[in-house]
């Protein structure tokens, strides 16, 4: 039974995201900033008539401006939680790949800050990916007090 994963780049790292966590992938246009909110909230973006809250995932994970986050990024993953829609900004998107194997446990040393978001590891075509959990990102956005 194949599971589909989207390979995305977050904060310079290529990660795999299970497609059942993803509603859509879009290019975001102009973002309305939301001053006064945590720095990882990039602002608001209107997708047709929906208003999405744009989250800079790299900044949420690392807690600081990454090199990548200073460059212009317009790829975002759309998902929903608690009745609100979010657009998660990523550096780049590659492809969707089917993976037949069970996810492996993480055997490599990983950054403490990444740990909560990593739910396993994959190997595909000779490359290794972390499985990145969108649910964890959304949890943090729905209960912002725990992050701030």
């Amino acid at each position: 039974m194949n599971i589909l994963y989207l390979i995305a780049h977050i904060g310079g790292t290529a990660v795999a995201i299970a497609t059942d966590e993803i509603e859509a992938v879009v290019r975001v246009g102009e973002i309305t900033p939301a001053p006064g909110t945590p720095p990882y909230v990039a602002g608001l973006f209107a997708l047709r008539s929906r208003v999405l809250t744009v989250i800079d995932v790299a900044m949420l994970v690392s807690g600081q401006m990454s090199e990548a986050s200073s460059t212009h990024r317009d790829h975002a993953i759309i998902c929903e939680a608690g009745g609100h829609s979010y657009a998660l900004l990523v550096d780049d998107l590659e492809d969707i790949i089917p993976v037949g194997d069970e996810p492996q446990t993480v055997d490599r040393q990983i950054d403490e800050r990444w740990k909560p978001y990593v739910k396993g590891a994959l190997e595909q075509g000779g490359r290794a990916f972390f499985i990145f959990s969108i649910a964890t990102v959304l949890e943090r956005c729905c209960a912002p007090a725990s992050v701030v």
Partner: protein
Amino acid sequence: MDDLLSEFIAETQESLDALTNVVVALEADPSDLSLLDQLCRFFHTVKGSCGFLNLPRFERLSHAAEDVLSDFRSEGHIPDAATISAVLAVMDRIAELCVAVHAGESLPDRDDDELIAILRRCRQPGMLCAGEDVSPTLAAQKTIALPWPGDDDGTSSRALPTTRTVRLPLRLIDQLMNGMSDMVLTRNELARQLRNGDATPESVAAFERLSSSIADMRDIISKTRMQPVDRLFQAAPRMVRDLSRELGKVIHLSLDGGGVDMDREMIEMVVDPLTHIVRNSISHGIETPDERRMMGKTEAGLLSLSAYQSGSQIVIEVTDDGRGVDVDAVANKVVRAGLMSAHQMALLDHQEKLDLIFTPGISTAEKVTPVSGRGVGMDVVRANIERLGGTISLYSEPGRGLTITMRVPMTLTIIPGLTLRAGGLGFAIPQSAVIEIAHETNPMVSVCERDGALTATIRDTRYSMVNLETVLGLPVLCESGPRTLMLVRSATGVPYILGVSLVDNHEELVIRPAAPVVMASGLYAGMTLPDNGQPMLLLDAAGVAQVVELPLIVENVSAVSDDEADRARKMVHYQALRFTELTGEERVIRLSLVDRVEKIPLAAFSVTGGRGHVTIGGQSLLSVHPVHAETLPTGVSEVHCIRIRDGVVDLCYPVRAVLDVQDVPQDMDRAASAGLVAGVVLLDGQPVEVIDDVAILALNPDFQREEVPSLRCLIADREDIWNRQILAPLLMQAGYQVLWGEEAGADTPSDIIMITGSAANQEDTPAGSLPAPVLRLRSSHSPAHPADDSIYRYDRAAVLNALAAAAGQRSAA
């Protein structure tokens, strides 16, 4: 009342359906107390509602059932099967009655007493109903008590309510609303594209149809959230009945819902303030029958609740024909509580004083009754209404009644809002949060910064101020026009000033909730997507003040009242002449005192005994300040003088320069009377001293002599040096005639006798035996004992007041 009745029936039937399962579950697990609670609540609700709907059979049945169940509950006993059967039988009977009432038919004439008796028998734990005893009866009851819904004895034709309802979770309706606004926005987008591209007439026509059906749909969906306003008044009849009995009053209640619909949530939020107002009317407003008869009113008071629609607002009025608000009592309370000075109070008109009833902690109730006066006052009512984006106002006719008008928006999801810009970004703010908007350059407005904290004064009121850019950490951009100051409401009701680049526009905004991560900032109340497709955040004015911990100040009168009346209020100003003193300070003097400004040669000034004089045209006038040539810049040969005249007084006020004529607020920013200065006002952000009108006129030696009626003061002890050297000159200077005790002899007529020295605080001088009123002057600062009515002898003002009072009495006599 018909609406209320049908709603009651519908609700009861719904609850009955749901509760059947609860009873069954209770039977399965009789120890589950939460199920028992649910049942009790149901019977309690039915009992409460049918009291004023005049449904005695409902009331008796539900009352009996509640009694029995709550006994079980409080004693911790577990209801047995027979009890549960009995309860079910009562529920069935209620269902049966519902159908009959709804169909408007006479109630099935069956014996409720039997059911109740069975119930009551279950009540004694010792006498748990033996199944054999009751069951046959119950079984019989059950078969006949189940005509609803599928019975065929003729009741089926009238079985169900004609308007059928389903209950929906509010969330589903919200989703519908959101879907709807999505459609509206998509339509707008489509309209733009059609305008830009080359649309065929066919597609334009199709678009028009789509447009109009979307508009219809939007109306219908908005209505799903709406309920008749009558619902708001549902609890009123019962409350009026109970309270009026308790207080021994007779009250006719009239309700008029006006067929208006209102957002369900809004209704729920208005219920509490309305209840409070109705309670106040009954307990404080409407008098007892006796009092009313004495005042020539009908014995029964009239209380009317009405609602009607006005634009996008619902107006709810509560009118009674009671005694109205005792405005002076309210004013006194505010003054006594130290919230305003008597001086400030004197400047308020009737309506403004009335609005003081919204001051926190002020209640007109003289004593706490079980009903009102428990410290939760009209301030809370107003805060609640304002939180909904509404307003509240009072109209009182003393002795005739009081009308309280609440205006609330029909719905919370579409609100009138203002869009504004700050730091290059766009924001929205609910219009209801904004009291006033002014440009920074408005002459009525001045901004001043002290220790990094901003304050802004609009007319005569100073508020705390913060720039939105500062709150949000945005740069303050240089805009072409002046910045805009918005006077907005905070959570406490004390308004503050929010500075922004500019206020753009006024539009109806569809508000949607923002993501929790955005709401957590505390600055925003939601977000909106205007027609241009750029999302906008909706500012929460109260939240902004809390987040930046703005010290909320309002200096002077408006501290206790920021209502609309305030804005419309004519600020009391007077025209004043602003000038620079010889010594350099800036001061203002009331223009009406000024006769003219002229230049007088330096040589005309002279100084005698420390007082300045000026000789003009052979006449010597008092100069307010002595003019010393050596203190003036060299080469000056003439001095600017303000000539002050009020018919009697003629003074010359030498100044360095006359600056301007300005409007000066009557209310001083700091009243601090010292010499010629009455206090300080802020003009153009600068503190300027105000000349005390009375003090300056009093300078003229002729002035007091004109005013003082003659009074013969008899001073008892001539030997006393203080009497001779201090008191007598003071009296003479004040224009009174001085007589000495020994010389005058006991029978010389005098108007007042002044007793000084050690005799003053001795009670043994029998006041009654003397031929005139006595004024005792004591040499100690504080009174010797509580009953001591003497005056401290150096309290010049008090002494002169006492003499003036005596003079007044004499001339009146």
